[in-house]
């Protein structure tokens, strides 16, 4: 019997170093504006997510995709996101993984503990805050393509298609849990 | 305030075990003594022959004797053993697993520290079903101990006051596993460690104690300095758990402090001399990590100093 639902073993692809190198000179501000908008929108549409964070809603998280030349500093309340070359000191917690794994985690397509066990996800700092964030996100069932495209008004549909294509390219057709 | 002596948790040689209790009967100022193998049913046959003599000597010396039941009962042989224990007349059973309760059917009994009683409702349930003495789980904080003790005034409430703290029980034998033996053919290697086997962290910090299927703390619980507040909290008995040291002297020290012949500081100095090299702990009582030790009521918590042992 072939079980199409079983976990697809093997890690998600990482972004090739050459591509990452080519991205290095890109200006960060436009990216920050777009992602900041996505975060604001998630905040508006998923109040339960922020309730779940409880006392950790004010934590500052540093998120570093290990295969990209920049990183993010994210705060939930008030929702704030900045794109930086290097993570600043003084963050409550730092999370690093490949960009694909981070996207898959955001959408609940992979299990965070499984990524910890396989060492593809590294956590430092306030472990409790990170767990709260992960559990809150997992419950929210975010669809990043929908969240991002909705920022673009009438251009939303083509933006959504482009995002889904890009996601498919980065993550593969699915994450750990195919369906 | 009574003093009670808990059962020997380690695998001592049978003659040594017998002589230990003979001396307790003759010399130790304890009111209650709990006997019997409660950790590993494989060890029981070694002590069985000596139990009648030990019980008789203790009772003749005026001690109340409790017969401890096995902590973890899963095999048929262990169930039978537990059932037989419940049928014994002339001494109360100390229940360490609920398996016993059905066979006891409401007859008077004691409850050991391995039964989960965390609140006044559970304590009242057991009191209503025949419990006359309850030794509370070692991890209970003082606030809970006090609430429970006040809720069951007709039952003697006891706390675990001296000895390495029992922390876990397993179906797996770690002594056998460490010696690369199967549990069924363990050759009783735990007898090599009459005070348990020290377990260190990767950074050589003394941490836990292995005793066959049981895991205990490395630190030695010591509530001598807390005896006053325990008495105010209606605790009626302090339990001393046998270690590989002069337990008669340990009991004398507790009795001296309880009766005002010595103060807590003097008593603690004497305890440290009798059971040397093992740090004290009382963190559980103060709702702190169990390995910590707080001196007196107003003292600060002190972390157990990491002891660098030979690598």
């Amino acid at each position, binding site marked *: 019997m072939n079980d199409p639902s079983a976990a697809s073993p093997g890690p998600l692809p990482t972004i090739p170093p050459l591509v990452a190198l080519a991205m290095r000179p890109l200006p960060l501000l436009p990216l920050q504006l777009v992602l900041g908008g996505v975060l604001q929108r998630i905040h508006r549409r998923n109040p339960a997510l922020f309730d779940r964070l409880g006392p950790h809603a004010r934590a500052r998280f540093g998120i570093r995709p290990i295969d990209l030349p920049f990183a993010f500093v994210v705060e939930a309340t008030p929702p704030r996101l900045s794109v930086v070359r290097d993570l600043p000191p003084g963050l409550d917690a730092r999370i690093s993984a490949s960009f694909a794994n981070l996207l898959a985690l955001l959408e*609940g397509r992979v299990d965070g503990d499984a990524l910890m066990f*396989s060492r593809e996800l590294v956590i430092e700092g306030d472990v409790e805050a990170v767990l709260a964030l992960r559990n809150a996100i997992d419950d929210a069932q975010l669809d990043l393509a929908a969240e991002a495209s909705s920022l673009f008004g009438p251009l939303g549909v083509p933006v959504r298609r482009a995002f889904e294509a890009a996601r498919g390219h980065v993550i593969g057709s699915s994450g750990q849990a195919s369906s | 305030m009574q003093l009670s002596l808990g059962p020997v948790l380690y695998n001592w040689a049978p003659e040594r075990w017998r002589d230990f209790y003979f001396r307790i009967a003759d010399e130790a100022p304890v009111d209650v003594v709990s006997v019997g193998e409660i950790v590993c049913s494989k060890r029981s046959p070694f002590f069985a022959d000596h139990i009648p003599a030990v019980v008789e000597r203790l009772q003749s010396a005026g001690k109340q004797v409790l017969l401890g039941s096995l902590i973890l009962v899963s095999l048929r042989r262990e169930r039978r053993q537990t059932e037989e224990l419940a049928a014994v007349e002339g001494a109360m059973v100390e229940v360490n697993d609920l398996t016993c309760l059905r066979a006891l059917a409401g007859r008077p009994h004691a409850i050991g520290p391995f039964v*989960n009683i965390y609140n006044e409702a559970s304590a009242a349930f057991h009191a209503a079903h025949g419990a006359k003495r309850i030794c509370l789980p070692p991890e209970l904080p003082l606030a809970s101990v006090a609430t429970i003790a006040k809720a069951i005034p007709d039952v003697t409430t006891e706390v675990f006051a001296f000895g390495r703290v029992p922390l876990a029980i397993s179906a797996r034998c770690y002594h056998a596993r*460490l010696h690369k033996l199967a549990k069924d053919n363990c050759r009783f290697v735990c007898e090599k460690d009459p005070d348990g086997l020290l377990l260190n962290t990767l950074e050589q910090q003394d941490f836990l104690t292995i005793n066959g299927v049981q895991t205990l703390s490395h630190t030695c619980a010591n509530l001598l300095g807390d005896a006053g507040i325990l008495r105010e909290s209606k605790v009626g008995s302090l339990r001393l758990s046998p270690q590989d040291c002069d337990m008669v002297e340990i009991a004398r020290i507790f009795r001296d402090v309880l009766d005002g012949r010595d103060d807590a500081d003097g008593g603690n100095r004497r305890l440290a001399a009798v059971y040397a090299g093992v740090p004290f702990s009382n963190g559980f009582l103060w709702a702190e990590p169990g390995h910590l030790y707080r001196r007196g009521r107003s003292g600060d918590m002190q972390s157990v100093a990491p002891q660098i042992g030979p690598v």
Partner: protein
Amino acid sequence: MMELICPAGTPAALRSAIDAGADAIYCGFNDETNARNFPGLNFSRDEMRKSIALAHGRGARVLVAINTFPRASAVELWHRAVDDAVSAGADALILADIGLMDYTARRHPNQRLHVSVQAAAANPDAIAFYAETFGAKRVVLPRVLSVPEIAEITRESACETEVFVFGGLCVMAEGRCSLSSYATGKSPNMQGVCSPPSHVTYEQTADGTKSSLGGFAINRFAVSEPAGYPTLCKGRFSTAQGAGYIFEDPVSLDATTLLRGMRNAGVTALKIEGRQRGRAYVESVVRHFRHALAALESGSETDIASLKPFTEGQASTLGAYRKTWR
């Protein structure tokens, strides 16, 4: 057919479990009344009511775990959890504390009651005590028993039995372990947490990642060496007799290959551990066991992809189900 009992730490995970073929889902309130009291996890009263209604609409049952031991002087908090779970329509309550079982049996005599694994009822006498005293209908067996022992218990008990088939494996008898509170002051029995994340640190060193609990170093992993949860029973230690994983390796239970034995032993329900895990875990593991059960039923051979990515240390064990584990 044996029932499949699946974990849910969030309403979304509960929906995933139903989608993947769960017969029943177990979950708890977002406070210290349940034994997976982790940040960001579990159900508010409102979420519980809605989730139970949703599950019932889709033919699935919901078992509410209220399986910590009530704190002295605060027993009402647990009583309220019981009352609220009953009024939300819970199909069964999973309880561990004797006092709470007593309360439930008196106050809600018609409520179905399951004995939690935290109660550590490991033999027919203990199980009979719960069945006779509180009318318990099912017992979740502690993970200290072999399959023949489970068969014996099931034969001798009026109670249904439920056994774990996948996920985190307690090495110590459940509900009787104070290792976590010895190191951190927080325990599964009282606060509903083992190795609380607030007391866990990961430190990147030249030798790899060092994990500590309450200030005690409990493991060190080389850069790409598979890891497990930072629990004491799966840490590396040293003794005069040798060093390494003294209690247990970082592994998860996977009893996929024992399903036939469990059925022959008369087991009523199979339980998947992992209320702290994500939707991806719930979806994949539940679907895996749904397929395995279907294959068992039809007598066909199972050729099921491995659940290895979801296991601690990327490795699995049959645990105490195989007697040599001891």
